[in-house]
């Protein structure tokens, strides 16, 4: 009986959480199109997010490209198809690994920090203070973060794609003995604009997911240090699941 009761409670809590998130997104769009833009704040967040994420993005790109080249070589050498390595590296990176890995890393790096910052503001009554100062917290807290992250993600993915291809190039040329010109020619020849753009579209969607989920987790956090901790964990877990789920849906649509 208790098991059924707990199951029911969890189900109701899940449905109520989804409902609140949908309402939150609806309110975001309502205030986004009826804005009071704080340009200074928007620009500040964009720069903050951009600078703080570059090192992690560069590392993600270079190691992904290097591992892809190594693993592809192990498999393709059995069928004497080593020449396909540049194509595999560039297609895998631009279509899938670039946007997904960037999304997951940014969710851990930026999403968690957004959730923790906003949750701390809730716990220390700064959100209430905003209301008493006639400031809409959607305009002040949510819009700058959503805009900054949604616009920064395509740049991050482009960087991961580029650095990843360079990582594959380094391993292929200096470790596996590929001809350097041939590697680059194969990479460029096989890459179509649609491959790149599909990854960029995914990046926009993932950026929106991470920022909106992180802001929501922060604003609806519980009380005290535990509340801040839970908000941070929830933002990363929910964003990651939604990134993987939406990646499948988008791949179905594009290809």
């Amino acid at each position, binding site marked *: 009986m208790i098991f059924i009761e707990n199951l029911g409670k969890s189900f109701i809590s899940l449905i109520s959480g989804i409902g609140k998130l949908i309402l939150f997104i609806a309110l975001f769009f309502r205030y986004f199109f009826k804005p009071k833009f*704080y*340009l*200074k*704040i928007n620009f500040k967040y964009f720069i903050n997010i951009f600078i703080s994420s570059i090192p992690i993005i560069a590392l993600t790109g270079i190691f992904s490209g290097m591992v892809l080249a190594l693993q592809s070589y192990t498999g393709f050498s059995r069928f004497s198809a080593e020449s396909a390595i540049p194509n595999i590296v560039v297609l895998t990176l631009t279509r899938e690994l670039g946007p997904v890995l960037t999304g997951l890393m940014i969710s851990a790096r930026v999403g968690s920090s957004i959730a923790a910052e906003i949750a701390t*503001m809730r716990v*220390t*009554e*700064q959100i*209430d*203070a905003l*209301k*008493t*100062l*006639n*400031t809409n917290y959607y305009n*002040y807290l949510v819009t700058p973060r959503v805009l900054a992250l949604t616009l920064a993600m395509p740049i991050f993915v482009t960087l991961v794609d580029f650095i990843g291809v360079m990582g594959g190039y380094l391993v292929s040329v200096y470790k596996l003995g590929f001809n350097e010109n041939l590697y680059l020619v194969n990479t460029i020849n096989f890459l179509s604009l649609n491959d790149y753009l599909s990854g960029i579209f995914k990046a926009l969607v993932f950026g929106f997911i991470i920022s909106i989920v992180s802001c929501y987790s922060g604003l609806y956090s519980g009380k005290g240090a535990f509340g801040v901790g839970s908000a941070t964990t929830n933002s990363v877990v929910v964003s990651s699941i939604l990134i993987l789920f939406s990646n499948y849906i988008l791949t179905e649509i594009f290809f």
Partner: protein
Amino acid sequence: MDIEIKNLEKKFNDNEVLKDISLKIEKNKSTIILGQSGCGKSVLIKIIYQLLNYEKGTILYEGKKNIDIDKFSMLFQYGALFDSLNLSENIAFTDYMDNKINYSRKVKSLMADVGLDASNYHKYPSEVSGGMKKRAALARALYKNPKVIFLDEPTTGLDPINSDLINDLIIKVIKKRKITAVTITHDIKSAIKTGDNFYFIDKGITQEEGRCDKILSTKNKIFKSFITGARY
């Protein structure tokens, strides 16, 4: 501004925090709301400020049900200053956000009023003491020239000397600017010093009311035990 509250009730899920609260906040007077920690004092002023909804009861602002909350201001328990902004940007928050640049004179004058040295103008909240944060938060609350100011435990977390300084400051500011003040506290000494009228809340009900200078001569058993710290 007069504010009248009649039979107010507030619940959080099944937890009935306020059961039957009735009180009157008189214009240009300092009203103190006393009560134990967790008795719903902060909830009450957030309801009056329209930051929280309530289930039952009536709140009349100068006889009307609705009010422009721009006439209100609040000093939060721990200041609630924005960590990413310096003290001057915190104090002039609305003007700073609207990119108005000529707020420095007003900010400096307010800083002087609350006893903050001008050298703190560019400092961040993390770089100043708890007492200075409270002063900056009070300056922010006064920046928009409110008609009513709500003070949520203004001396919490401060040592006795700083508490007394903050109390003096509150009296000075309220008298100088002719503001209606509503202060929440469980500190009897502060209540007697800064208040005109008081209300004592216990178990969600208004248990006692009167003039602050008569607090110590109360006959109410529950209030008496609250003052003396004895359990009942």
